[in-house]
């Protein structure tokens, strides 16, 4: 099943992330080798790749959690590596990061999880406005009934949704999804894919979706690319990327058992 309302020619839009000659190594292991990538306004860009190829490293560099060895990463017109702590925090308000394991604060209720970024970054909000923001994002992920539950009481799919809701509460311009469907059953995967598209439409976000799930890629991606041996092979539609003679791409496709 293809993504509905796929954006044609996102290249004509404004760039929100620009990555040039990005290199990152861990010891002797050169993970990213001169990576170049652009993310355009309001598009979903899927980054595919096997485990350990540096997909998560890429979005951690974009969000400033990791530092690159060389190269530039410009987010909303600001070079990440040149920002001081305070400017980086201000920029992060515009970047939502959905973690692979949701990373919910397990000592807090769902409400407290959602309020956490809000009370620290929107200090002038009244209690009523905070309540409205919390209810609004819970409504967006269809989990209003979980508001007073602890993360340990939620299912894997619910945790993912609450994790996404927590990032949405600051209304970010950019969403970074790290393996949004990993460890979920096929039905829940479809729901999460639908939610990613809903987020794009409702919040007008530009997103990078890191995954090795081809169904997720097909259903959520406006453009798709694949990280192979530390570099992106080609950026394009699902068909453009997989219509290739490259054995590495073909084998990745075949092992995903997709129709």
């Amino acid at each position: 099943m293809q993504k509905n309302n796929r954006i044609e020619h996102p290249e004509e839009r404004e760039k929100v992330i620009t990555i040039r000659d990005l290199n990152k190594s861990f010891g002797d292991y050169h993970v990213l080798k001169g990576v170049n990538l652009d993310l355009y306004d309001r598009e979903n860009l899927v980054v595919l790749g096997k485990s350990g190829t540096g997909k998560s490293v890429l979005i951690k560099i974009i969000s400033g959690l990791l530092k690159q060895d060389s190269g530039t990463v410009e987010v909303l017109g600001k070079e990440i590596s040149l920002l001081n702590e305070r400017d980086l925090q201000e920029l992060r308000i515009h970047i939502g990061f959905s973690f692979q394991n949701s990373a919910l604060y397990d000592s807090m209720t769902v409400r407290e999880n959602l309020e956490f970024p809000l009370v620290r970054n929107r200090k002038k909000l009244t209690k009523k406005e905070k309540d409205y923001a919390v209810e609004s994002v819970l409504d967006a992920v269809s989990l209003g009934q979980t508001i007073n539950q602890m993360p340990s009481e939620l299912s894997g799919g619910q945790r993912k949704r609450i994790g996404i809701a927590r990032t949405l509460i600051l209304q970010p311009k950019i969403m970074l999804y790290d393996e949004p469907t990993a460890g979920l059953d096929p039905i829940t995967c479809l729901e999460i894919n639908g939610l990613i598209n809903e987020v794009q439409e409702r919040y007008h976000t530009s997103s990078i979706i890191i995954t090795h799930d081809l169904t997720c890629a097909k259903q959520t991606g406006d453009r798709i690319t694949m990280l192979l041996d530390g570099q992106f092979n080609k950026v394009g539609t699902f068909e453009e990327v997989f219509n290739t003679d490259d054995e590495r791409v073909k084998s990745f496709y075949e092992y995903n058992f997709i129709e």
Partner: protein
Amino acid sequence: MFYELYLVYQFIIKFFKEVFLPPYEGKEIMRQCYQVGYRSLALISLTGFITGIVFTKQSRPSLAEFGATSWLPSLVGIALLRTLAPLLTALISAGKVGSSIGAELGSMKVTEQIDAMEVSATNPFKFLVVSRVLATTITIPILTFYTALVGLLGSFVNVAMFEETSFSGFISSSLESITFLDIIASTIKAILFGFTIGMVGCYQGFNSSKGTEGVGKAANSSVVIGMFLVFIEEVLATQITFLFRT
């Protein structure tokens, strides 16, 4: 080894930079103070009380030999305030609170909760480390004086079993020999112990390696290193106090 010491130094410097800069996490500091006090209170009460009884019982025969059992309240008071109460409180807190901080932060590190705080434009060092270190630094001195009081109560119970004495008379005899220097030295020592326990727990948890093994290691190291440093500090503090006393 030297690199690790450099990282510890950086961690401590970062604490002193962050502690004075806004935003201030007052609510979280209060919550942590309550947690630190609440977690240790039962064990500290029991240990302090038993120490008071046992110390009095063990000291009585030696003093009786010289007909000096009337000195018992003073002896217990001095021993409790100068060394036993700060040390006992610090060791129990290192076990209960230090391990808990190490495990909690280690677990948060492993499950990417600290990263999640960082990307949601919140300073995790300020929220997690500064609040916990301040909480232990504030609460452990309070617990120390509480331990001394409970210890005196235990001592009174033992004394009252052998001779007729009033509680107020016992307490005033105990406090007679305690000097202002004793109170100041114990307070400074307890503050130092509290700071050390909080700092060690936070450092171990915040820098724990990935995986569940890392969480266990962080909790264990928090206790072992915390207790070791408390003993070293006790020796140094005693030496310095003696310099002032002579």
